[in-house]
């Protein structure tokens, strides 16, 4: 199986991205993943519609290269297909499950490429302005909420999170980039996520 990146004229199924954070959207995604575990292709199509834009978005954000991002997105969705039976709604939301897979794979791809082009990576954009990140947000409501919550962080917390999550750096790379001790960065990352979690009203 190979992913080709050809354009497809007959494609009319471009999903309109939905606000991904909603509890009911998450519940629906969980139901669909439950059906996917039983081999339900229609449910898998629904999962793609719901989660595909978010998966492609974060993968693209981390990897940057559209062709590679498309490949990795396909890997992520296939992993959802293969491992749907492993999803347990009692342990977190369906979107968190899918996005964890997506982010992990994106980072994995970046780090394996990184070994080949260490220098290039080191000089790569060390400061992606978070406004740039936020520009891509699809739902204005969700965009506002995430923007507001990111803005509520200290500068160091925000930079730690954006460099780690959106750029795929390890905490010691982030520490190097920001010229801050690694212990401090580890702490800031955790503090930042706790604040974001509380600010976003995430329920677990």
């Amino acid at each position, binding site marked *: 199986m190979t992913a080709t990146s050809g354009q497809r004229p007959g494609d009319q199924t471009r999903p309109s991205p939905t606000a991904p954070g909603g509890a009911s959207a998450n519940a629906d995604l969980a139901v669909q993943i439950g059906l996917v575990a039983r081999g339900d292709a229609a449910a898998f199509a629904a999962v793609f519609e719901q989660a595909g834009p978010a998966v*492609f978005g974060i993968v693209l954000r981390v990897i940057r290269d559209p062709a590679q991002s498309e490949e990795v997105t396909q890997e992520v969705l296939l992993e959802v297909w*293969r491992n749907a039976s492993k999803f347990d709604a009692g342990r977190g939301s369906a979107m968190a499950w899918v996005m964890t897979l997506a982010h992990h794979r994106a980072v994995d791809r970046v780090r394996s490429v990184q070994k080949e082009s260490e220098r290039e990576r080191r000089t790569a954009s060390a400061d992606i302005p978070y406004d740039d990140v936020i520009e891509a947000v699809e739902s204005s409501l969700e965009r506002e909420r995430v923007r507001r919550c990111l803005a509520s962080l200290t500068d160091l917390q925000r930079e730690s999170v954006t460099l780690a999550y959106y750029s795929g750096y390890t905490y010691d790379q982030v520490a190097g980039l920001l010229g801050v001790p690694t212990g401090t960065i580890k*702490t800031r990352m955790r503090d930042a996520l706790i604040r974001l979690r509380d600010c976003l009203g995430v329920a677990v």
Partner: protein
Amino acid sequence: MKLGLGKRHTLPARDAHTLAGAYAMDAISEQDRVRFERHLAGCQECTQEIASLREATARLGAATAVPPPPGLKERVMAAAAVTRQQPPAAAEPDIPARAGAVARTGAWLRSLAWPGRLAVAAAAAAAVAVLAIAVVFGVSNGGIRQQLSQAQASSQQIATVLTAKDARMVTGPVVGGGTATIVMSHTQHALVFTAAGLHTLPDSHGYELWLIGPAGTRPVGMLPPGSHGMTGPVIASGLRQGDHLALTAEPAGGTTQPTEPMMLDVAL
């Protein structure tokens, strides 16, 4: 449950849980990951904290959503159609216990968090295995089944259909139980058929595929017996405009015309 930021832990690596944020963002080295997961296995609070932090990172990720490129959905669906799914984990006790129930949670997190290259390799191997057992059906001359010597050609043919620019997928319920998934390409004059959950037939009978259209009713061949609820993938060539794909349960040797009611009828 939230942890106080300065909370002390009497765990082997006392500072390990300050890694929670970095871990939740995949921002750690392999060494640190191993170390942190050792800590996680014995720290239920940490496990819960990681789950909650991942809800937050998921929101950060979802905030970057953009429409996937055209055609990606079809390619993903087509790839899924020929990818075997993992069975559910056995209920109990399935994980070598490190710390009882907590270890289970940790294991779940690990399986969730770090599928890594191993999983990529496994996926690729699974896909190859699925393709390797694919059976080619002759179409034009009485539905003579060609066997495993054709496996290589078959996987090539399947790949050709799946990656064709005009590849389209349809699914349909099978009368009596099960779902059929078909990926077709009219430019390749071929389709890939898979089914899940088909009712098991007695040995005297088998499922037979048909192409029915302006060019007449042509037997495609007998489906190989299902395994673990999955049948196929098989490839059928000779697809023409206006064809329908049909499925019937026929005597084991197959017939030249359908003699039993259609269990599936999909316009292609």
